[in-house]
């Protein structure tokens, strides 16, 4: 089955892409650039770097713009799916949804309207097993934004390794955040994945942080050999 992977640049979509590549044919990545940082549907920090991820994975990229206004975002996403179907012959869509019924049900409806399959390989996954798999399989996942207590500025740009995961587990236990950040507590950017032919080297970045909200904006990045 030829699939398009909805890609925000974060760990969930990139890992889902890796799963899809193992079992089906990934024809393209699909991304929507939301102007609104509070977008309900689209993860926003560093989404412009999906272009570099697509190049690293040697996959075509379908990109569209969205004002990021609730529900209107769906029209913009639908447009992206139509382009992916027309240009890359996709038969289905893969998302990185884990727990979000809001996200999953809206994308399911868009797909059904277009007779596209909708696959969510991380749906209700074991969050701890998934986070450990990311580390074990060599995904280079960086924290690109924090949006809740108790995250401090030191988390911005930090790689999720075994030590970071242990802290996240402690936060999940103490502060009831979702371990995967599915509740919007943090966002990520993937600089390398097992299926990338090259890795992304970050050469410049800016961090801003205030009152448990912070962004790690990557302002310079390039592909390097692995």
């Amino acid at each position, binding site marked *: 089955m030829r699939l398009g992977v909805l890609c925000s640049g974060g760990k969930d979509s990139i890992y889902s892409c890796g*799963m*899809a590549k193992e*079992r*089906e044919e990934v024809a393209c990545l699909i991304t929507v650039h939301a102007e609104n940082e509070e977008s309900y549907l689209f993860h926003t920090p560093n989404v412009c770097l999906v272009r570099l991820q697509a190049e690293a994975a040697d996959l075509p990229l379908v990109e569209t713009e969205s004002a990021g206004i609730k529900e209107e975002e769906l029209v913009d996403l639908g447009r992206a799916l139509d382009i992916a179907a027309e240009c890359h012959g996709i038969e*289905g869509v*893969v998302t990185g949804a884990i727990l979000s*019924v809001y996200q999953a*049900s809206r994308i*399911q*409806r868009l*797909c*059904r309207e277009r*007779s*596209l*399959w*909708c*696959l*969510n*390989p*991380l*749906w*209700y*996954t*074991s969050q701890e097993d998934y986070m450990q798999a990311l580390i074990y399989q060599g995904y280079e996942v960086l924290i690109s934004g924090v949006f809740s207590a108790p995250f401090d500025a030191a988390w911005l740009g930090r790689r999720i390794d075994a030590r970071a995961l242990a802290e996240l587990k402690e936060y999940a236990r103490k502060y009831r955040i979702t371990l995967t950040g599915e509740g919007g507590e943090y966002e990520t950017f993937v600089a390398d994945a097992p299926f990338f032919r090259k890795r992304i080297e970050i050469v410049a970045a800016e961090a801003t942080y205030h009152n448990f909200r912070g962004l790690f904006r990557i302002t310079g990045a390039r592909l390097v050999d692995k």
Partner: protein
Amino acid sequence: MILLVDLCYRDGSLAREEFVLPIARIVESVGERCRIVHFTRSPGSAARDCKGIILCGTPIMDNGFMDDPSLFSWVPGSGLPVLGICAGMEILTFLAGGTIISCPGIGMTGVRVTASDQLIPGIRMFEAYELHDNACTLPPGYIALAESERCIQMFRDPDRPVYGVMFHPEVGNEWVVARFLTGYCRPSR
């Protein structure tokens, strides 16, 4: 041991993670082990040492499991408690003489309990996640236990612990699977 029958489009498909493994985790959470077998791989022979069967769901575009319904003729003869989820409910409907009708539903929906039963004691309403293109008519003799605006959401065989649910219990209604397991699948066989 609980037999989980994977009804998705291919053995080892990408959909297994979404429609089978979340149910397997619920089974394990109540202390049971499970065996996952794709519907094309003779699951009937794998049921012999099992205490119950769960027929799992499929993606909304995935109806290939109904191409050859004779593949499920072993289910009634197994004599085991059965829980059919979404696509699994469609199979139970077919086996019991009901009809599958076109009835799409995606997202959260209110479910009203219409008959009391051991699986849903003391509950009048609950919210559930549905993801289906079809729904089921009530097979002859079966009891409708719960319904939404669109369709029957839960039914059972009046004489045996054979249940169908149209909603996906892994989203907030894990208790349905847990009660099925603890209520009917505990005794060793």
